[in-house]
């Protein structure tokens, strides 16, 4: 946990009780995120490689994708990141009421994003006849965006758990590191989407 730097204030960025000066939970999360970078890097590379040499009969991604829906999803995820940052800011100030509202809004935005993804997948499968097995585009696209969607779902569940926990009265300013670690995970999901939005969607329109 973070150490008390001075009377009435907690230094949330440094921890004098650890060798690194960084709270252990935060260090663990950064190490995990660094490894997850490599995981998503491989998935994105696979998609790009197969887009580089599309086998004959591969559907035109431009005819399949809906840039309007994806842009909306991107905007929603960016706004959820803002609300998550505000949630961390709130718990660091010990403002539980503000934390709850920020978490609730983040969950709401996360659910909208997931709803958009479910709608997109359904549209691709039933309207555009693009499935995970009938083309390389479908295989790499659904694997990549599906894995990202799974990360968002895990984030939403984690956020909901934290929101419920905040009502037990056991979540205080001293536990800000728990909310911050969760925030790191949520922002990571956002930065992965920033890359996917450009590499998978926008590049098809050039």
């Amino acid at each position, binding site marked *: 946990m973070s150490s008390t730097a*001075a009377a009435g204030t907690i230094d949330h960025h440094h921890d004098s009780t650890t060798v690194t000066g960084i709270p252990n939970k935060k260090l663990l999360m950064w190490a995990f995120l660094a490894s997850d970078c490599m995981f998503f890097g491989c998935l994105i590379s696979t998609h790009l490689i197969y887009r580089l040499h599309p086998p004959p009969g591969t559907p035109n991604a431009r005819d399949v994708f809906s840039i309007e829906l994806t842009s909306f999803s991107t905007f929603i995820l960016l706004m959820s990141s803002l609300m998550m940052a*505000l949630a961390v800011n709130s718990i660091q100030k010990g403002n539980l009421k503000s934390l709850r509202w920020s978490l609730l809004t983040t969950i709401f935005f996360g659910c909208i994003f997931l709803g958009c993804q479910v709608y997109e997948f359904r549209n691709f499968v039933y309207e555009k006849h693009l499935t995970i097995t009938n083309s390389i585009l479908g295989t790499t696209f659904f694997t990549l965006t599906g894995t990202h969607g799974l990360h968002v779902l895990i984030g939403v569940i984690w956020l909901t758990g934290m929101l419920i926990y905040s009502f037990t009265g056991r979540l205080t300013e001293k536990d800000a590191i728990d909310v911050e670690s969760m925030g790191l995970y949520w922002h990571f999901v956002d930065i992965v989407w920033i890359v996917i939005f450009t590499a998978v969607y926008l*590049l098809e329109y050039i």
Partner: protein
Amino acid sequence: MSAPATTTHASGHELEQSKFWIFVQIAMLLAVITGLELVTVYLPFMKWILISALVILSTVKFMFVIFYFMHLRWDKAFCTILFFIGLVLAGGTMWALLKLFGVADSKPLSMAEPAAVVRLAA
């Protein structure tokens, strides 16, 4: 002793207050950059210019999120180093894979030149 503690508390409180507005401004900036990215793909420029512009814009968004929303700007440098180790490894792997599979010899046989297919079959 109480004076420095009060000063620390006040400056800490000011930092937290200013962070709120920093986060709001950055979110607005990120939304604007996303809009710019959308406009970029429809511009009648050469492909490499558009791709470079998209890469730069998404890198700017990426950096704003990690340094401000993820607090790397205020955290110890070790967090930045740790994350960038993963990022560099991921980026290097992506670059290597794209280079390896980008060459003509990596094309699927159905797309390769007929002469090359015959040579391989022989």
